[in-house]
């Protein structure tokens, strides 16, 4: 151990283990998390840093190999702890999995677990859940979630993809009629997923009923070849998350059975009659789940960055505070403390806010089961603004941590650039931050 770091640890005035337990929400949670991370940190699950020198394709291939090895552990944890998708345990194990070193530039299977399955849960009827979820749990199918289009982002009412009901065959016919209507960005869609939840404008009996969710098979379950009428591929290199095969999807008269529309809230009957949802916002359920996860992840990214920066600042010595003295630890400079300590405090503030959001989300779901939608606008507004402010603050502070480490923070091997790449992606996915703040503003103005 570096002597300076050792000295820092000796002068700490509080019990670190007690603080860890406080952060995890109790000793039992700390124990569980450590058990999970110990398994995930076995040498066979840890990336070699030489992946930084791989090509885009090689990175994807390695990510698939390692994701398969790693996510097979999820079944092991699930068998041992018997959790379901709605349990805190599921969220915690996922956080550990996606936060492991193997996933440091993202996983092609992430969206399957974070969006595909939760979306089926929040948007599918109990029959649909019974049919799809076991297949998804066992990964006999792998799903993506396609909402954003090449020409259309956060404003989902403006999506162009269509799903037109044909009562003669009891099928939906899906189309992306223009280049701008091609689905763009879904994680895992490029080469990994064989199914996809597609958000499209529903047409039945000649009338448009707005956007709804449909499960579309995009690749053959055996050969993995794209099915007829499907144009699918990887959108290319990005600032970060290059292990995730974000994809594009074009649909040309793709027919799916009526039962593949997720019908928990709104339905299309066999004869094409549309049965409206109690509240159209209920379709945003999966997005709200993801936003709660994002806020929590944001605290994790920031805690990683600030841990790196503070330890480095304790080891790094530069300049003299007083003439004739040895070079001092850069952590002794108030300017350095100003950069870093607010990041530590922000980790706690974001984590606590994320917990509050999670509690609100769970309370809403319980009330929803009882038929109450009273909390929906508040939850939506809360999820929007917390996602926006927390991702923005976290990104700013991670960059500040990188700058606090000087040139060494610019090295990929510091892991600060990759951490920044992951954190800043969250500022745009699942709703651009400015648009989300305007959604909160709409709620406030209405209030």
């Amino acid at each position, binding site marked *: 151990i570096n002597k300076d770091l050792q000295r820092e640890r000796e002068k700490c005035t509080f019990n670190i283990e007690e603080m860890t337990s406080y952060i995890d929400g109790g000793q039992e949670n700390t124990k569980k998390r450590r058990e999970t991370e110990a398994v995930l940190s076995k040498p066979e699950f840890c990336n070699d840093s030489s992946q930084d020198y791989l090509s885009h394709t090689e990175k994807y291939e390695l990510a698939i190999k390692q994701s398969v090895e790693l996510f097979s552990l999820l079944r092991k944890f699930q068998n041992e702890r018997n959790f379901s998708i709605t349990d805190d345990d599921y969220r915690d194990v996922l956080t550990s999995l996606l936060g492991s070193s193997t996933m440091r530039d993202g996983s092609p299977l992430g969206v399957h677990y974070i969006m595909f399955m939760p979306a089926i849960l929040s948007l599918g009827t109990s029959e649909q859940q019974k049919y799809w979820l076991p297949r998804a749990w066992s990964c006999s199918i792998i799903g993506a979630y396609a909402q954003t289009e090449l020409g259309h982002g956060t404003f989902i009412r403006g999506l162009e993809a269509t799903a037109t009901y044909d009562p003669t065959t009891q099928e939906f016919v899906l189309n992306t009629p223009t280049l701008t209507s091609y689905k763009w960005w879904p994680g895992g869609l490029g080469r990994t997923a064989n199914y996809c939840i597609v958000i499209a404008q529903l047409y039945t009996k000649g009338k448009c009923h707005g956007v709804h969710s449909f499960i579309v098979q995009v690749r053959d379950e055996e050969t993995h070849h794209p099915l007829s009428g499907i144009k699918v591929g990887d959108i290319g290199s990005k600032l970060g998350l290059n292990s995730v095969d974000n994809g594009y999807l074009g649909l040309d008269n793709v027919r799916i059975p009526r039962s593949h529309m997720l019908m928990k809230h709104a339905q299309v009957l066999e004869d094409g009659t549309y049965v409206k949802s109690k509240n159209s916002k209920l379709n945003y359920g999966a997005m709200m789940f993801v936003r709660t996860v994002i806020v929590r992840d944001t605290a994790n990214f920031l805690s990683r960055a600030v841990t790196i920066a503070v330890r480095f600042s304790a080891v790094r010595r530069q300049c003299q505070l007083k003439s004739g003295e040895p070079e001092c630890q850069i952590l002794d400079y108030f300017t350095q403390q100003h950069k870093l300590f607010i990041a530590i405090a922000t980790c706690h503030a974001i984590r606590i806010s994320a917990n509050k959001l999670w509690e609100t989300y769970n309370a809403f779901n319980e009330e929803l089961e009882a038929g109450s939608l009273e909390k929906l606008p508040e939850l939506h507004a809360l999820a929007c603004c917390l996602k926006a402010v927390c991702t923005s603050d976290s990104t700013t502070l991670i960059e500040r941590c990188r700058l606090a480490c000087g040139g*060494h923070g610019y090295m990929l091997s510091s892991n600060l650039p990759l951490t920044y790449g992951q954190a800043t992606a969250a500022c745009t996915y699942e709703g651009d931050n400015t648009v989300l703040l305007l959604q909160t503003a709409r709620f*406030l103005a209405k209030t």
Partner: protein
Amino acid sequence: WQSLDAVKLTPTVAYLRNTREKGFLNKWENTIECIIRGMQVVAMRKIQTSVEMLEHRVLSGIPMEDAWNMTSLQLVAAAEAHCRVIILSSFYENLNRVQTTSSPELKRVLNQLVELYTVYWALEKLGDLLQWVPISQKDIEGLKLWYEQLLEKLRPNAVGLVDAFDLRDEILRSTIGAYDGRVYERLMEEALKNPVNAEPVNKTYHTYLKPFMMGKL
């Protein structure tokens, strides 16, 4: 907004009614509670002024959609201010919750973190506070001093605070942030893994660089 006093407010916006009451914040004090109240006033005023501006534009004949767009900078700022109130209040309330269960040492350092976070945002949002709450230049000097004192108090615990995040080296995957602090050794080890260093002379020297240096390209 106009019928705020009559409607039932959900928890995250309940503060909007209190802040409109007379005497909610007549006098500034450099305390956490006062800063949070000050931020609540800022959020309320920002919502109020943006809604009033929106209404004014609509009444002057501008279509609602255009008025919304023209007011969107203020609306975004109002939403952000509201979110700051939620984060600050949640952080502070959580501190009160752990008062009975934690050791005095932990409570002290958590309290310092809450104070640091709150004072930091008060200083970041000074322009807003100056506009809407009775804060003086002397109060601001006091806030700056308080912030610097907090940095000083937190300094001895800095490494302990990040150690408490309990991030394994396998998760951090950082040459400069590992638990043992072997920063320079790890950086060198990583440099040696660079495939470009696998051979002493890269082939591009003979193909391009040498001819170029000799003026043949």
